[in-house]
């Protein structure tokens, strides 16, 4: 039988605020345990929360980017549960009046664009971090109270690949919106996955399992592949799917049961009496809407129109906002957008992925890349030496002109110098010369290579080929 999977995602995104959601403690990452804490985020009795207005604004901006309806009236609620990560024994969240309703995330899958529906976006506080020791656990409250935006999708995806594309597209939009750093290593984006399977074409959904707290997109992809196959196997072998929470084990590549619905939580939501509702005026929302940053899709179209780039190039550059920013800054400086794009797409992206770094971590500047393209255009460098200079810019930064002078990389276009190398190459490689003379066109490439080697990569390759042809015929 054919089965269809149905997938919904709840993505928690840490907002880029300086201070926590309900107190003035820092949100800085990596501090010593329990150094960003106060009576509010430690849940001392009587301590009163006060909303961080910036967190509200960033959530609404995200909602506007994703086409949500912004609630005129929203409020916060208490979600009760007992766990050491939450000292108040409730988490402040939003239950029935979230800040944003609806919306969509557009994904590209199998050459087509699909709109994945959103249910809502609400705001809540993060919880503390637990560390596990040999026979006890420790609690660090630095993260408790950090603003978290939860983006809830409709059960609108049907394959692990769609879920993966959704996460990437959502991250891209959030980065473009400038509301979060989306740093996965620092846990800025965490995801709960709901998945069920049912016979294809069935009008009812199967019983779902929830996979909690995933913090890599690859993890979500692999967990879904495993879990969908597991559920189908279970049904095929006459078993029954139980509604439960499962945990993903990335080392063993399996999901395993954490708890079944019988001991599911009863959160007893009720309105948070210590916080007043949020009422957003139409004027306020319009002001934020007018100042909205460009969307990734809008930018892709613009790069094609404004710089005459192929659609493919524009898509690659736009995928990472910092790369697209870098491209535009360099292209404006040197006026040869296609050459800038080529160098970024081939060399810069390769160097970044090999070194597993982000653009922000390396010293190369858009001005330097523009300068490098200028040297290529002026034929001061050939593509080999340009690569070499780019490697140096990537590692050490600096001005390409200075590097070219210091390293003596200026392209040799002096026919007198090249002539000598050409004569030497012909003398040393009689077989290739004979091959060329008997009509083997490819043999000339070997001879060009020899000359380039003798010039330590600095000869002008077009000139070398021309001089060789002149000599041989």
């Amino acid at each position, binding site marked *: 039988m054919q089965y269809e999977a149905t997938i919904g995602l709840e993505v928690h995104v840490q907002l880029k*605020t*300086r*201070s926590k959601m309900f*107190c*003035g*403690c*820092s949100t800085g990452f990596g501090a*010593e*345990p*329990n*150094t*960003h*804490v*106060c*009576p509010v*985020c*430690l849940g001392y009795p009587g301590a009163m929360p*006060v*909303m*961080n*207005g*910036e*967190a*509200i604004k960033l959530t609404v901006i995200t909602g506007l980017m994703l086409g949500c309806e912004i609630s005129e009236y929203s*409020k916060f609620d208490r979600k*009760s549960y*007992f*766990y*050491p990560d939450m000292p108040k024994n409730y988490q402040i969240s939003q239950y029935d009046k979230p800040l944003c309703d609806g919306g969509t995330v557009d994904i590209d899958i199998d050459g087509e664009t699909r709109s994945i529906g959103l249910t809502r976006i609400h705001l809540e506080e993060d919880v503390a971090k*637990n*560390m*596990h*020791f040999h*026979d*006890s*656990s*420790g*609690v*660090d*409250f630095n993260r408790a109270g950090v603003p978290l935006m939860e983006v809830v999708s409709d059960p609108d995806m049907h394959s692990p690949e769609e879920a993966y594309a959704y996460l990437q597209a959502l991250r891209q939009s959030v980065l473009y919106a400038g509301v979060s750093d989306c740093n996965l290593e620092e846990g800025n984006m965490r995801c709960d996955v709901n998945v069920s399977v049912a016979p294809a074409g069935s009008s009812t959904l199967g019983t779902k399992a929830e996979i909690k707290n995933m913090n890599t997109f690859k993890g979500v992809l692999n967990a879904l592949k495993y879990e969908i196959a597991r559920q189908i196997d279970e049904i095929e072998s006459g078993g029954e799917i139980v509604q439960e929470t499962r*945990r993903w084990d990335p080392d063993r590549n399996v999901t395993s049961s*954490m708890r079944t619905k019988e001991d599911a939580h*009863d959160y*007893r939501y009720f*309105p*948070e*009496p210590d*916080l*007043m*509702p*949020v*009422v957003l005026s139409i004027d306020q929302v319009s002001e934020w809407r007018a100042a909205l940053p460009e969307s990734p899709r809008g930018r892709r179209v613009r790069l094609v129109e404004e710089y005459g780039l192929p659609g493919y190039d524009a898509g690659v550059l736009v995928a990472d906002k910092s790369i697209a920013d870098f491209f535009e800054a360099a292209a404006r400086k040197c006026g040869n957008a296609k050459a800038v794009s080529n160098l970024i797409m081939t060399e810069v992206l390769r160097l970044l992925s090999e070194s597993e770094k982000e653009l922000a971590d390396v010293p190369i500047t858009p001005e330097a890349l523009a300068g490098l393209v200028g040297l290529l255009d002026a034929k001061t460098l050939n593509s080999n030496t340009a690569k070499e200079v780019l490697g140096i810019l990537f590692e050490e930064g600096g001005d390409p002109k200075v590097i070219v002078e210091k390293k003596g990389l200026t392209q040799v276009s002096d026919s007198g110098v090249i002539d000598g190398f050409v004569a030497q190459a012909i003398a040393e490689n009689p077989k290739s010369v004979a091959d060329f003379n008997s009509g083997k066109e490819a043999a000339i490439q070997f001879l060009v290579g020899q000359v380039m080697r003798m010039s330590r990569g600095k000869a002008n390759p077009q000139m070398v080929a021309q001089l060789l042809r002149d000599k041989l015929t």
Partner: protein
Amino acid sequence: MNEPGRTDTDSIDVAYVAHLARLQLTPEETTTFQEQLEQVVGYVRKIDELDVTGIEPTAHAVQVENVFREDKVKPGLERDRVLENAPSCIQEQFQVPKIVE
């Protein structure tokens, strides 16, 4: 939503509510609280007698909205003082019984 532990009738599932609050009650206590809680809820239910048609639900008695603070970092508490409140500590963290998921 129909919450478990609270039905439309007057009866309260005291054992369930106690479980949610992590309270251990004797059967006698359960009976006592059953009666007392039903009285309390019954008293609050008097409010049902009011005609509230056309009145917007509100979360607060006072009509105040949009109480925000600026996104500014303020120093918190000294860690030594914070951890003084902990029954025990491990590596500058609050020590709790081992959490098993």
